[in-house]
């Protein structure tokens, strides 16, 4: 099953490689991984999207907790949570495509953030499924480039991951 694991770790050189190394050394899946400092600059927050049986997920959480730089780990799937991902898509926008692209963008509540001769760059946020649906909705030939951040997640209500 797909799980979103959130963790807080010391914002130190090499911390990211410890997590990435753990996943490759133990053969765990990583679908995506995002990391950035928090409001406290000494801490980084990482969101890892992974998948595996319950036993594997349990081991992943334990192994992450064992890393000396990791302060806290939370499996978001243990409760209610919200997940968002940001995508930038550069598409062909010539002739009839130009109007079509604008319309698709509006339907998905995206924004055109760059306009050039023959191209649009569209910004879209949402769950991974929504971003997938947008890509599927486009004519494949119209897509020039895509870039996705990977999912970020946060617990609902008073589920808070903080030191």
């Amino acid at each position, binding site marked *: 099953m797909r799980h979103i694991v959130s963790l807080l*770790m*010391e914002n130190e*050189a*090499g911390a990211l*490689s*410890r997590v990435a*190394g753990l996943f490759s*050394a133990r053969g765990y899946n990583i679908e995506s991984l995002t990391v950035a400092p928090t409001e406290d600059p000494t801490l980084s927050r990482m969101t890892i999207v992974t998948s595996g049986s319950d*036993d594997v997920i*349990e*081991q992943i959480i*334990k*192994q992450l*907790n*064992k890393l*000396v*730089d*990791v*302060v806290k780990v939370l499996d978001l799937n243990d409760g209610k949570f919200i997940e968002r991902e940001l995508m930038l898509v550069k598409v062909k926008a010539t002739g009839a495509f130009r109007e079509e692209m604008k319309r698709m963008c509006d339907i998905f509540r995206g924004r055109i953030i760059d306009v050039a001769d023959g191209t649009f760059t569209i910004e879209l946020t949402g769950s991974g499924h929504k971003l997938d649906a947008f890509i599927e909705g486009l004519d494949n030939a119209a897509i020039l480039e895509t870039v996705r951040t990977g999912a970020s997640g946060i617990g609902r209500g008073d589920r808070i991951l903080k*030191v």
Partner: protein
Amino acid sequence: MAETTHPQHITGAEIVIRCLEQENVKFVFGYPGGAVLHIYDAIYKQGHFKHILVRHEQAAVHAADAFSRATGEVGVALVTSGPGATNAITGIATAYMDSIPLVVISGQVPVPAIGLDAFQEVDMVGVTRPCVKHNFLVKDVKDIATTLKKAFYIAKTGRPGPVVVDIPKDITAHFADFVYPESVEMRSYNPVTKGHSGQIKKAVKLLLEAKRPMVYTGGGLVLGDASELLVKLVKALGVPVTNTLMGLGGYPSTDKQFLGMLGMHGTYEANMAMQDCDVLLAVGARFDDRVIGNTDHFYSKDRTIIHVDIDPSSISKRVKVHVPIVGDVKSVLAEMNELVALEKPTQSPALKAWWTQIESWRGKLCLDYSNNNGLIKPQYVIEKLWEVTKGDAYVTSDVGQHQMWAAQYYKFDKPRRWINSGGLGTMGVGLPYAMGCQFADPTAQVACVTGEGSIQMNIQELSTCKQYSLPIKVILLNNRYLGMVRQWQEFFYENRYSESYMDSLPDFVKLAESYGHVGMQITKPEDVEGALKEAFDMKSRFVFMDFITDQKENVFPMIPNGKGLSEMILAEDL
């Protein structure tokens, strides 16, 4: 007016020395080189610890590792950058797999040169990351003291392990005020100590009500210094007990309640009791693949498993357990003993019947071997070694058949006496391990049981042994084969002995003599005991004993790879 003490303004190299002094380090095992020259200059000027000059960095780490295994203290090794650092890796990985607390200080190229492919540069933090508990690169002289304080703290607390501290050369020449922190606070590192009392109560109840109880302990019990508490518990409950390869000595081997080692080359009675018990107490052991080779076969019988371990990730990793207890084995066993004492257990009819069953398994005499072909049997050498040393030696081993025979036939009654590489299975540890033990206990008898393959993997340390006059006794079980490889080739590859024959061996007697040691070659069974006595009587000499043994001897019992605990091959089956 009260005198105020100002912190001393000293170099980074001197700070390193002062930190080691503050940690009460007695021995540093190392090898100098460019990036650590400032540190070696500071070593020259100090008088607090002894530096042991090895002949290869791998041996420095192994010796520090054995020093720790023998004493319980943190072992310390010092190596230079680049090749010095990479030579240390096997030693670090060996210690990591067996959870041995080490601090390994490696030199690094100067900070401005990092990343420029400088001479003798290697990314030590990157290279060691998968085989250390933690590692640090120090980039400011002001951070040396706090980093080393953290390194020692991390190495020895929780589940112990090696910590690497990589220090660039320029940092060791910079000056800073020396203040050694009194304590360490790390918000990201808070190892558990006490076990959950509710779980402990539940475990004790299960053990008291068990019909066929069994206790299985590993290296964690030895590292946690909890042997006495285990003996008390096992005696009070009247239950059988087995030790893993890493756990030998955790329970006295000569006691009647001890069933011997378990696992791939464990005894018939230990493996059968593991399979057939109804309540299993596992303490500081991790159900690894050499203990429970086939988990499905293990699950084919029902039993309730209680697992005590300080590392939550060791619990339910390979085998699902029912009552997990995360905590320091010493504190958990102490609590268990208190609860058991309140109950004053007596032997139930069920437990009596269980012992009858165990005795019938024991009656198989699975470690018997025939001793009548005029050749020296390796098992016989170990039995005589046990007699001659009165069961009180530090025994180190390398990896292979000789290791298994040493584990099976030397009856360890004390913890921290059996020193071997269990997890990583590193050939070449035997001699440097013996060095570490001899430094830890200079007047003790130290025997290195080895094979002619393994001993040549760190043979250069004969020179170190000479320099420091270490009276180690090498017990070489020389069968002219990589014995364990040959055994597997005989069983599973139709006798195709691919590259397992050790040809062109040196004359070990002359080799030992050329290093200034005593060499002996023993070819007849009737000479074994006398030669061992003669060697151990030479209390101040290093003696290299080359026993020419039966080439075709195999290790039994054996659970073939992937088979279940009760699917052993016994010597009598063949």
